[in-house]
């Protein structure tokens, strides 16, 4: 059991609105990732759920019961902090036992739970060490272990991997995914790293400036970003945006021209299509650009920088009209700085956004 419902949550510090209009339902066993740029309020939202801060408006329900007035200790949640927040003066065992001792659990039960968690996380050999004597990865495991022994209804993880080096982050990410698969407990995971979000999440909540921009599965976010912000935030490198104009209305969408004479049909819902007039924005992911073949729609680009990564090559360029373009090309094409290349795109992978940045169509 670990259903968490947020209903109209808002949080303000004095006159500064940090969060507003947060409505979210998290199902039991789901791994939900809050993602967004720094300062978007994702950690604050997590602290509200944890009970470490109180919302200024709205209701938080855990398994149907409103917990707004329930203190953090009694919400049955466990949290893993960004800095791990291990008690430096206690051994690993002491750190894990602290929460259980506070609930007056029998000594035997505590020992059993710690042993179980230690086995699961492979931290058995360090149980009697202090956190200061552990490496970053080991501390991370202890922090997770401290959460696990509590047998919580849900785990709250606040950027748990951000203090680890890149290599360790990949390993721990996989371990976290495995852990979630095994425990099947609800997890809320806060990160600013979209790779973590994409790989771990059942659903991703994209936040910006205290508002939810979109909630969906990772692939839906990637394929059908609801607005310009999500489109630009999810996916690396960032999506290319080009200004476009509406030429004509089609039965199921619009005909759009962009990039000095390119023209393509984009799908749009009938109502939206009628509303959209004049300027809009077209987006193409760098991965969806390729070197143009004969007969394909294409546009010329002057290469300004080539980043060869081996498996793929990132090409930075400028179009004739001065728009910057990023393309991720497979393999190792022979392109050098200053070259003129022609790039092409698949029409059905175009994203179109109206003047307000809202997605037009579900291509």
């Amino acid at each position, binding site marked *: 059991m670990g259903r968490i419902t947020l209903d109209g949550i808002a949080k303000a510090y004095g006159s500064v609105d940090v969060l507003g209009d947060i409505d979210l339902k998290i199902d039991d066993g789901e791994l939900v990732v809050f993602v967004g740029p720094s300062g978007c309020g994702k950690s604050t939202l997590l*602290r509200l759920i*944890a009970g*470490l801060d109180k919302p200024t408006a709205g209701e938080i329900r855990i398994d149907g019961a409103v917990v707004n007035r329930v*203190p*953090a*200790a*009694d919400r049955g*949640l*466990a*949290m893993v*902090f*960004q*800095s791990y*927040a*291990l*008690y*430096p*003066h206690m051994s690993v065992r002491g750190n894990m036992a*602290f*929460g259980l001792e*506070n*609930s007056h659990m029998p000594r035997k039960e505590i020992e059993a739970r710690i042993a179980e968690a230690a086995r699961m996380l492979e931290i058995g050999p360090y149980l009697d060490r202090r956190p200061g004597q552990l490496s970053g990865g080991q501390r991370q495991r202890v922090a997770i272990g*401290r959460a696990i022994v*509590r047998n919580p209804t849900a785990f709250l993880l606040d950027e748990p991997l951000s203090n680890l080096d890149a290599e360790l982050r990949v390993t721990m990410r996989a371990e976290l995914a495995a852990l979630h698969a095994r425990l099947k407990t609800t997890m809320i995971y806060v990160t600013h790293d979209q790779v973590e979000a994409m790989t771990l999440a059942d659903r991703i909540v994209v936040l910006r400036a205290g508002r939810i921009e979109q909630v969906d599965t990772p692939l839906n976010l990637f394929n059908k970003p609801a607005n310009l912000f999500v489109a630009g935030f999810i996916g690396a490198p960032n999506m290319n945006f080009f200004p476009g104009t509406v030429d004509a209305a089609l039965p199921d969408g619009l005909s759009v021209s962009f990039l000095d004479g390119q023209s393509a049909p984009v799908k749009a819902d009938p109502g939206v299509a009628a509303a959209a007039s004049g300027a809009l924005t077209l987006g193409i992911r760098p991965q969806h650009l390729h070197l143009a073949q004969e007969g394909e729609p294409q546009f010329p680009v002057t290469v300004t920088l080539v980043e060869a990564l081996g498996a793929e090559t990132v090409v930075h360029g400028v179009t004739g009209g001065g728009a910057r373009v990023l393309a991720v090309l497979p393999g190792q094409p022979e392109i050098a700085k200053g070259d003129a290349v022609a790039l092409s795109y698949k029409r059905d992978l175009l994203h179109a956004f109206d003047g307000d940045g809202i997605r037009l169509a579900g291509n």
Partner: protein
Amino acid sequence: MTRVAAFLLRRRGGKGWHWTDVFTWMWLIGGVVLMFGPAVWLAGSSFKSPAALAEFPPSILPYVTAEATVEGYEKPLPLYRVAGEDGETRILAQVRRIGIVAQMVDPKAPGEIVKVNIADRTPVREISFATENYTEPFLHFDFFLYLRNSLFVTLMATLITLVTNSMAAFALSKYQFRGRSFVMLLILATLMVPLSVILVPLYSIISAMGLFNSLWGVILPTVATPTGVFLLRQYMLTIPDELIDAARMDRASEWQIYWRIVLPLTAPALAVLAIFSVVWRWNDFLWPLIVLSRKELYTLQVGLNTYAGELNVQWHYILAMTVVTMLPVVLVFVFLQRFITTGIAGSGLK
């Protein structure tokens, strides 16, 4: 040794003497004399007999005039070096002095009295430690009673100081509430009020509480120290709030957060405050003097004061017992100096 010498004697001017070298040496030697001079004088003088103490000009080492037992005289006689008319120097014992003439006798030939002008004789002096300055008070003075009172006051006051100050510091560093800075400021403002200003009201409070002539009357008014609250608060501010959040998630009560998380982590600052508190309470004089009027309740510092009578000050005992009462504080500083410096630096700058 050579490395120590090299370290001590190195000069900015290389081979020659730069003016800063001269200045540094003078400055440091001056500092040493200023700091250690009184202490050395105190330690040296504590071994002097009352007569040697009254001597002018004073000497650093405790000298006494040498004495010898001479046949035919009951008491030991003081020895003098006398330059004879033939230029020979003899050592004679003085029997008595009449005006400017001393009647002296040669210890080897005690029968014959020699008359010597007192200008022609100089006392034979030898170093002698008057250890009875130390032993006498232990036997006749209630040293151990006073020591017990002093220990009780120091330990209790330090313990209560640590607990109350750390609680105040915890509240002022880890809770957000309206007027927090104001309260802190108010506490710090009391630093500006010296004891002598609040002496009378404090006395009436203690008296009204029935703590007059009780060691608790000495202890309680001193336990809340603004310095201590400030020191601990600054240190606690460096403890990450995430730890406290983590403890809250771990179902710890506020008391447990204070007792099991914050207090152990504040240990370095607590050590500093403990050292300070021990030194303060041990050296306290004015307040115990006022509160305690019964002799069996005196602390060491007040007890020492009993040697300074209205008509007669027994300097030799005062000096000796001052050395004894100073020892614990000196030892504390010698051995715990490291904690004091690191603790202050850590709590102030981090």
